[in-house]
């Protein structure tokens, strides 16, 4: 019998209570957290501010000590120095030395991994190119914009070619193109077999890159499962088509009404602002318009794994894919709502509605196989125990800070 792979991270009954000066319990930041992160998995930790995401991560890194429970990272305590040789960490803000420039920063962190000077220099240059800061490498970090600091923060997290990458709000402070680049890098690193723990309250980020997510609220796990399972709307059907004539649409409506006694909504889809923005920037970069910000992202360094494409090409392909899908955006067909949904439900529906442009790797949504659809009036056993009210609560949250 094949031996099961050891989880990269395993927590058992992990709890953290912050106490005040008089040692009185003040805040229960994390309560009885049990998570396993398997090798090669991109694991998302979701939650609003104060949900315990960062506290959990800091306990995984040995920066905070648990009040109760047990943590193992690569089968060892998180305070073990040897474990840190295999970890890369990007905190929620890039806590870098302002007086160092980008090269010195990467060089300094490389030295802490006892890397040979030649290796260090090579990695430093490759990472600077990857994050698009090769032309700003001699500027002090203190002069960087927040987005540029995030990029160099990501570069330092990768300096040791980590097996396990912990990213806390990696896209915070980044412009859309930077966000797309970072997400692409995460996805590519995931493809290369890296284990990634991504913490965010930006649902789109997590949805785009994570294999499995865990939603925290009040320091406790509210839902856990694959993104696909969590987001599946099993009571909806979506049909996508090229532009149809009004007659055809009327006919389809009639068919649906006759056979299913349900109404459908027909709309002309619009393109996404993100895609438009990316296209404009792409055009500007092609025209070589001067900018003091980060340059176009380069290739993922070879030392991180086998890179088959460069980041810029990926972005271009994404934009092209998005452009191609624009005229064929799905015509949503939904059951007529009897009750007006609550505002939060509307937001939830809008956010969880599959958008082909956001997942170009997926084939265009076709009509679902009726045999695989749940029968009306029957209940299908959901493999994921998701507390929808909590998700709604998350989506209601107006916070934009860290959790």
């Amino acid at each position: 019998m094949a031996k099961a792979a050891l989880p990269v991270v395993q927590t058992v009954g992990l709890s953290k209570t912050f106490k005040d000066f008089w040692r009185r319990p003040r805040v229960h930041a994390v309560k009885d957290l049990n998570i396993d992160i398997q090798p090669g998995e991109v694991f998302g930790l979701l939650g609003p501010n104060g949900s315990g995401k960062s506290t959990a991560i800091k306990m995984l890194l040995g920066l905070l000590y648990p009040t109760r429970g047990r943590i193992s990272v690569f089968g060892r305590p998180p305070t073990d120095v040897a474990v840190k040789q295999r970890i890369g960490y990007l905190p929620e803000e890039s806590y870098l030395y302002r007086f160092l420039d980008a090269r010195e920063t990467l060089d300094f962190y490389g030295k802490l991994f006892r890397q040979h000077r030649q290796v260090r220099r090579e990695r430093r240059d490759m990472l600077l190119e990857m994050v698009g800061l090769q032309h700003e490498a001699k500027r002090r970090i203190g002069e960087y914009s927040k987005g540029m600091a995030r990029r160099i923060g990501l570069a330092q997290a990768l300096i040791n070619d980590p097996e396990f990458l912990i990213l806390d709000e990696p896209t915070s402070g980044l412009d859309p193109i930077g966000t797309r680049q970072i997400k692409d890098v995460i996805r590519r690193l995931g493809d290369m077999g890296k284990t990634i723990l991504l913490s965010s309250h930006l649902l789109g980020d997590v949805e785009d890159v994570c294999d499995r997510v865990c939603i925290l609220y009040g320091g406790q796990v509210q839902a856990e499962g694959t993104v696909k399972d969590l987001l599946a709307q099993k009571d909806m059907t979506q049909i996508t088509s090229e532009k149809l004539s009004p007659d055809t649409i009327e006919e389809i409506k009639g068919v649906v009404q006759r056979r299913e006694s349900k109404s459908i909504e027909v709309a002309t889809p619009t393109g996404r602002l993100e895609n438009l923005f990316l296209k404009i920037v792409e055009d500007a970069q092609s025209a070589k318009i001067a900018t003091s910000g980060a340059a176009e992202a380069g290739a993922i360094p070879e030392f991180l794994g086998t890179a088959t494409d460069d980041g810029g090409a990926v972005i271009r392909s994404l934009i092209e894919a998005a452009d191609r899908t624009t005229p064929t955006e799905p015509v949503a067909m939904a059951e007529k709502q009897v009750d007006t949904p609550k505002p939060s439900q509307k937001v939830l529906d809008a956010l969880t509605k599959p958008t082909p442009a956001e997942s170009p790797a997926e084939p265009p949504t076709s009509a679902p196989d009726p045999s695989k659809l749940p029968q009306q009036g029957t209940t299908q056993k959901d493999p994921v125990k998701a507390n929808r009210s909590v998700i709604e609560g998350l989506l209601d949250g107006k916070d934009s800070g860290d959790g």
Partner: protein
Amino acid sequence: MGSIWTIARHTISESIRSKVALSFIILLGVILLGLPFASKGDNTVSGAVQAFLQYSVTSVVVFLSFLSIFLAKPISDDLSGKQILMLMTKPLGRWHYVLGRWLGIVCLNAMLLSVGGAMIYGLTMYLASKPPMDELDAKRLKTQVLQARHASNVITPSFAAAANAQYQKNVEVGKYSGLEYHNKTAEKERIRTQLRERWRVVWPLEVRVFNFEDVRCDKKPETMIHLRYAHTVSNYPPDEIVKYSWIFGSQEKGTKVYVAPRRDYIDRIHTVSVPADCVAKDNTLRVVFENVNPYIQFGEAQHANTVVFKGADSIQVFFSVGTFGGNLMRALGLVMCKLAFLSAVAVAFTTVFSFPVACLGAFSVLLLASTRSFILDSVSWVPEEGTLGVVQWMLNNMIRIVYFILPDFASFNALELLVDGRNITLMWLLMGIGSLVLIKTSILLLAGCLLFMRREVDEVSF
């Protein structure tokens, strides 16, 4: 060790780029460069050199002591600015971090001390190259300032047997009968001290032989040894001058004998220089003091004065054992030991407290370590009787415990010897390294590492 050195280098780089360190360095440089032009002393070149040495070394010690404390600020910055989160997620043990920070501060101190020392040496040589006021000034500069002289104290007889005999005699005559309290040992010691002091009193026409041991000088005639003494007299003559002779050497031991008749002012320090071939091969030196008062002048007896040498160090023989440069290096070495200790104090405090608190604590340690004898003397005078007795007893013992941990900076202060051209021994430096660095600094760093390993390095905001 690699990680420690990486952090140390980072600390040096960070400190050099920080404005606090830079302003300290610039200010120190300006002061050192300005001091030669401000140092006048007693308007002699030797006096100016001594004044410059006094002020320049003091300036370096004060500035670098303060800087050692301020240089621990990056640790506090790492904690408040959360750079520590990035560091502690790298393969860097917490003790590596603490030791690295300390090593960085110590290395920077060593660099600055070297630069400061080189400046002091260069500027001293510049001052010494100025034309002397007179021949005496030139001689004093050469033999008493820019020198590393060893001092041998005169061997005082034990007088234990004499003290015993005197005590027995006192008992027999009933001197102590009727006394409420009488301590035999203390009384014997008092008599012994009295006899020793009397031995340093030379009556008119009396001769006293002073013997010195361990005079390990080059015994060539061209090498000079120096007898330094200070005396007072029982009656002050009108001109405040007494006459006597010093006779150096011993014919029995086959050395040259030199006679030095003197007419010296009272209550001042005097030096007599003679060739070193009066020192015996066994490194002993015999010096005879001949109190020729009263002497006859114009048919009348003059000032029948008794000469008194107060204290064991009132007569010393000096001889050269090294150079001024070597002496300066050893003096700065002792300063470095203190700076290493202070850096450890600052680092250990900063790993636990916020920077202002750590700073205050480190300055308190500096103050306490510099005033150890004064404070210990003060507490020993506190009465331990009455209602407050228990509190006073506790306070006294608490202070003694604190001083058991804290070093005595005064006992490693070589400045006085440096200015006086006296040898700062390598053994003293090694004792400084052992006591201040290897023991006290190690204990502090160990405590700092343990406390830092126990603490959570992040404060979570909600």
